[in-house]
């Protein structure tokens, strides 16, 4: 028998015997929940057979594709169903954490009129609008309305992003702490991870916090040998020891980032990359004490980009100017133009309390803790399984 996993019936408990289409095998063990006559799945470990189950009585003895999809063991002998149960435990703890801290859980629409105008974003059109790539605009409107600190666990959608760490539809944990600095928020992320790790048994816990805060310029110096981050595109590549190629400064920045930094980020311990170049501020404010860098940070763990956070920009005029510049870039690159979210800009103008916010890829956090190589292992359905 080549298959390592096949359905069989428990015929005797002592000595434990299971029978399947191929005959009878002596069991080294079986699930305590099983009674004689129950169907389960035979698993072989070396020479020993184990029977796991029971499989529901309504399930045919030789299960179909759906059953196999959820019960096929991975290289560590765990199934997709195990991963979904694990994920459920994590999500429950995350909610518990925020609820205990007095956050209000909100749910904002997934179908929105504007997906934002970030240059490298491909939104998925839906019903005259778009599937939301991030709940940011609506959550900030709530903040302007006076909700106080809020969190949300929601689906977000980014077209064309697909691979072992990306699924076009993914789960975002996004929260905003009113009156908090971005450093307060980094501490809160550490607290969140510690909270779950202290309460749940995780196959692959992260090294306990505190974690390093590393300004972007220092990260470039440490791993790419780049001493002057403000140099031209060609000079950036040269400093990093990469072959010269025709590209913009931003492209050169990310080329060095992908080639030199990313393979090292969070290798041993998670790391917060802070103080991003002002041109990559996105929705972050500039650092009050140094306006050449933005109050933006990302958390990396195990080479995986886990979260992106901002000390939020609350100046409506500046936000509009940045959005228009982004739109112009999109136009220059021949990318579709997305509408500005005027009501979001109005909300900023109306007045939003000082706030820091962070978006964390919940699937990726579960991936890390579960030790998954592919995001699909922690999703009920990956896109290519629909």
């Amino acid at each position, binding site marked *: 028998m080549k298959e390592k996993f096949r359905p069989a019936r428990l015929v005797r408990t002592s000595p434990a015997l299971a029978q399947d289409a191929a005959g009878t095998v002596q069991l080294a063990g079986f699930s305590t929940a099983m009674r004689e006559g129950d169907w389960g799945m035979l698993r072989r470990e070396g020479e020993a057979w184990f029977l796991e189950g029971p499989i529901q009585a309504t399930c045919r003895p030789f299960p179909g594709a759906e059953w196999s999809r959820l019960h096929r063991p991975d290289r560590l002998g765990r199934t997709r169903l195990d991963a979904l149960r694990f994920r459920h435990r994590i999500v429950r703890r995350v909610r518990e954490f925020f609820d205990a801290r007095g956050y209000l859980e909100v749910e904002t629409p997934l179908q929105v009129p504007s997906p934002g105008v970030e240059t490298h974003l491909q939104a998925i059109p839906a019903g005259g609008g778009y599937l939301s790539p991030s709940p940011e605009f609506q959550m900030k409107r709530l903040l302007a309305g006076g909700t106080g600190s809020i969190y949300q666990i929601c689906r977000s959608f980014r077209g064309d992003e697909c*691979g*072992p760490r990306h699924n076009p539809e993914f789960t975002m944990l996004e929260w905003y702490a009113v009156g908090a600095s971005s450093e307060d928020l980094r501490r809160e992320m550490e607290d969140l991870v510690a909270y779950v790790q202290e309460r749940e048994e995780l196959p692959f816990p992260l090294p306990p916090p505190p974690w390093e805060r590393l300004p972007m310029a220092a990260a470039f110096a440490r791993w790419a040998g780049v001493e002057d981050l403000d140099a031209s595109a060609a000079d950036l590549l040269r400093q990093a020891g990469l072959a010269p190629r025709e590209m913009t400064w931003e492209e050169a920045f*990310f*080329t060095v980032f*992908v080639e030199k930094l990313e393979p090292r980020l969070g290798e041993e311990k998670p790391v917060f990359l802070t103080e991003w170049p002002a041109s*990559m501020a996105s929705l972050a404010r500039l650092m009050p004490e140094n306006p050449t860098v933005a109050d933006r940070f990302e958390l990396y763990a195990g080479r995986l980009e886990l979260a992106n956070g901002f000390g939020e920009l609350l100046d409506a005029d500046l936000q509009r100017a940045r959005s228009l510049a982004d739109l112009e870039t999109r136009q220059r690159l021949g990318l579709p133009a997305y509408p500005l979210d005027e009501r979001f800009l109005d909300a900023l103008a109306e007045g939003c309390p000082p706030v820091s916010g962070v978006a964390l890829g919940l699937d990726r956090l579960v991936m890390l803790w579960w030790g998954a190589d592919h995001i699909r292992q922690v999703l009920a359905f990956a896109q290519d399984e629909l």
Partner: protein
Amino acid sequence: MASTSDLRKNLKILVDNEPYVIVEAQFVKPGKGTAFTKCKIKNLITGSVLERTWRSGESVDLADTENRRMEYLYAEGDHFVFMDQETYDQVHIEKEILGDDAQWLIDNLPVEVLFFNGRPVGVELPTFVELQITHCEPGVRGDTATGASKPATLSTGAVVQVPLFVNEGEWLKIDTRTGEYVERVKK
């Protein structure tokens, strides 16, 4: 030409004028920035593996490669001669290209020949070949203890390690990737 969104496993591409096949492609898009595809690529001629990263929007040249099913005919000087099973064209391939694989060549052995820009650059043998033992020490009946082995010379001149119970004149299945004995076969 291909765009970076076409980069996926098994695509054959041209890098520094040599043909490569993509073994692994990983999508990365750090910090709301440009997207990249990080690939592990394998040189189709030398077999060496490299890592390369392409920025989204860059173009990649496709390699003009073709696999043709051929069979081995005979050796001639520095060359082996193969025949295309569809067109019956005969092709001379330098012995160097086969290297150690030459020791498994038997008449009419079906192979896949990789052509790059119209020239043969690689020959892939079937995973298993069956060869007869022309010489080995006599077998020891009943000795199936694992571990013990002896050399056996095959009809092509290749020498492989076989278990003690195997005898001269018998046919063996050999794994061409490792050059190892798999099992006896009845002929």
